[in-house]
């Protein structure tokens, strides 16, 4: 084991990370890199040396285009040098602890925490989580029956999506990965809108061009889901830059998984968001698996949150099954991103109860027992329910009637969406460019002539307006 000197900035930094863990602190504090200006300005409590402040001044003044190299050795101060041959052993760095407010039995752990929800708000949050879980079951089965090509459930991660969404504001720009149905629902997407996307029908704003679960909703500022893994992270930085340029006090909220964090886009996005001071919250759902790859095969370091410091990005790890903790951490990160105009990284710990998607059978790489044990151990919905019951805000009767009612609502929209016709055939050709060039018009005419010539071979009734939709 390599020894580390007492005055190593790295050990100091991680000691602080350790100190902010919930077991020892009653309020959340995001773990912060030591040499960032905003940190010093806001908290001011750490004994940063004068040189650090001068660094901060330099960083600020970069926007006034006074570039100066700040590498140690280029400055006259030689305190960055040491005679001790220290290698930082990652094993010696304390692991980042996971912030938790609500225990497995539904008890709030922090007596000073004031629940920020009214009974009505808490009920909506709870019902949204239940809605998603019921809808996931129905749609998973529907896919198995061949009624849609693909589906992805979010079982076990409802607390992450709904809890974080509850902390966001209407102006925030949302970039989802694919397991955040709860975000859409909580922000006001209707079941009809979700079903229209899943069935790629004429009511789908994407005109039926996306795979199922690739939602979008301009009304609630949810950007179309970008299927190439991790591509949404730099997009979110860009949308945040647009918010910054227009002076809008809002953030980009960007969800991704633990596997996505291995892609190059993750590095590119975090680095550029940090250096260009973009107000974006990078929200990692660490659910233990990237399709079949468990996290121990995905990375060697301390999860995703530990990477924040390397980018100069404040970071926190939170219990993803604890809706209150997820909400509180997200609200705090959001505020920090807006006020300080910088990115923040959240790593929410959970467990992917479901298969990755309908194209995956996870029992090929993990045991049923593992999944069953987890389901018995913890669940974000049951934890919230236990708390609600303790408040006398929820009862078994409420549960029964809510589940019955929600299931009925979902099935109603499911059947309705399935019956809606498909988008007009012309949309094969629209929106390739802003204006259609000749070649698209020629193709469209050719198809129309062809389908007209072979009416008996092609039944176009399922498309809106049939042949006239071309």
């Amino acid at each position, binding site marked *: 084991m390599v020894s580390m000197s007492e005055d190593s900035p790295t050990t100091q930094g991680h000691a602080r990370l350790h100190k902010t863990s919930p077991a020892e602190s009653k309020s959340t504090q995001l773990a912060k890199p030591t040499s960032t200006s905003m940190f010093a300005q806001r908290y001011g409590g750490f004994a940063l040396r004068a040189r650090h402040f001068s660094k901060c001044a330099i960083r600020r003044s*970069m*926007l*006034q*285009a006074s*570039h100066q190299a700040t590498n140690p050795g280029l400055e006259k101060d030689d305190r960055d040098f040491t005679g001790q041959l220290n290698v930082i052993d990652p094993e010696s760095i304390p692991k980042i602890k996971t912030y938790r407010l609500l225990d497995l039995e539904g008890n709030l752990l922090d007596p000073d925490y004031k629940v920020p929800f009214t009974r009505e708000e808490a009920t909506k949050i709870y019902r949204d989580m239940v809605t998603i879980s019921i809808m996931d079951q129905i749609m998973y089965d529907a896919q198995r029956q061949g009624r849609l090509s693909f589906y992805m459930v979010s079982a076990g991660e409802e607390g992450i999506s709904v809890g974080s969404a509850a902390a966001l504001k209407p102006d925030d*720009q949302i970039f989802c990965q694919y397991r955040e149905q709860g975000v859409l629902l909580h922000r006001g997407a209707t079941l009809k809108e979700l079903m229209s996307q899943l069935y790629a029908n004429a009511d*789908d*704003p*994407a*005109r039926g*061009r*996306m795979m199922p679960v*690739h939602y*979008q909703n*301009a009304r609630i500022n949810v*950007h*179309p889901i*970008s*299927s*190439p893994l991790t*591509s949404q*992270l*730099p*997009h*979110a*930085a*860009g*949308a*945040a*830059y*647009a*918010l910054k*340029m227009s002076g809008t006090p809002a953030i*980009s909220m960007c969800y991704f998984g633990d596997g996505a964090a291995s892609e*190059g*886009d993750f*590095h*590119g*996005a975090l*680095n*550029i*968001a940090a*250096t*260009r001071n*973009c107000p974006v919250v990078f929200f990692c759902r660490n659910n233990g698996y990237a399709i079949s790859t468990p996290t121990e095969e995905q990375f060697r370091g301390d999860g995703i949150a530990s990477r924040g410091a390397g980018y100069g990005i404040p970071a926190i790890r939170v219990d993803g099954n604890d809706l209150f903790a997820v909400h509180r951490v997200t609200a705090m990160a959001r505020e920090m991103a807006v006020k300080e105009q910088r990115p923040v990284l959240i790593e929410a710990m959970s467990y992917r109860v479901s298969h990755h998607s309908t194209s995956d059978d996870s029992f090929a790489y993990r045991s049923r027992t593992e999944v069953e044990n987890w389901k018995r151990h913890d669940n974000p919905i049951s934890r919230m329910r236990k708390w609600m019951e303790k408040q006398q805000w929820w009862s078994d009767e409420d549960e029964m009637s809510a589940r019955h009612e929600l299931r009925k609502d979902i099935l109603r929209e499911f059947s309705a969406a399935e019956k809606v016709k498909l988008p007009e055939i012309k*949309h094969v050709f*629209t*929106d*390739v*460019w*802003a204006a259609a*060039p000749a*070649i698209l018009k020629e193709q469209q005419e050719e198809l129309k002539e062809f389908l007209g010539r072979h009416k008996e071979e092609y039944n176009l009734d399922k498309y809106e307006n049939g042949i006239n939709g071309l």
Partner: protein
Amino acid sequence: MKSISGLAKVSLAQSTRAMLAGGMATPSPLAARLAGSARRASTQGEQATVTVRDAINQGLAEEMDANDKVFVMGEEVGQYQGAYKVTRGLLDRFGPQRVIDSPITEMGFTGLCVGAAMAGLTPVCEFMTFNFAMQAIDQIVNSAAKSHYMSGGVLSANIVFRGPNGFASGVAAQHSQDYAPWYGSIPGLKVVSPYSAEDAKGLIKAAIRDPNPVVMLENELMYGESFAVGEDFHSSDFVVPIGKAKVEIPGTDVTLISHSYQLRHCFAAAKILKEQYNISAEVLNLRSIKPLDVPAIVESIKKTNRAVVVESAFPGFGLGSEICAQVSESEAWDYLDAPISRVTGAEVPTPYYKELEDMSFPNADVVVRAARQVLYHEDA
């Protein structure tokens, strides 16, 4: 009429011969460049000349003046004023919010620009070379080009990707590639490739104004070249339409079709063909790769009945292949008196060593030979 397979065979054989001839018998195109058409151009009488570099710079500045949603981002575009000084002076004029130096992360800054475009801004994303854009090609192809379609028209990406393309001088295989065929094959993208100062200014302005994602393939060897410009060049409304080719030299016997730097060989070849063989060559500057101005190609071939396509990309699946296909599917096919000949880069990763590099790309003599071959000169 020849069969399609016959045409392909002839064309491939042509490009191979072109490559070999290029190295064996002719002076290097780079040597020709160093001899200095820039100086020649700048001493042509009283007429004002502008370099390609300044033309792009002027176009960028005008569009940034006109539209505060336009910003420039890339490696070293601000403080350093651009790796090739194309963005010179823009940081001072528009400030660091709109002329943004990026860390060395093509994935990061390209993705950020695409996200900003989808959020309503108009980024001009500079690559130090398009060879580096390979690191971010998923963002260009899968995100920028497809976002309008996949979102049902809800999103648009009014973004320009620009930077030098193709081979330069002694920068070896990984920095010497022509991406016109790559981006030219993607629905949703527009691709332009300027030759002159007028092309450069007019096309960058058109690209910024165009609501679609546009790839502008520039050429390092052209940045310092000066061109005479018309009076209207300095107007802030000087725009070259995307998708329209330009007949640079009218002719009657053979059409030389090309874009960007390779046009120089076409001009030199046209001169040799005229002076030594009394052949009148028409030189067609494509200006746009996508959409390709097929009507202009068809019209020219109907006049000359013969065509040579000159490009620096690899022979397979390239611009020349595409033009051969388009012509064979058009009325121009019936007007051809000889198979179209493709003069292309050689089918090898570009060599580093200068003489070998020179052998790998077209030059004027190869173009002359190809033109004489389609005219069935027996000694060609």
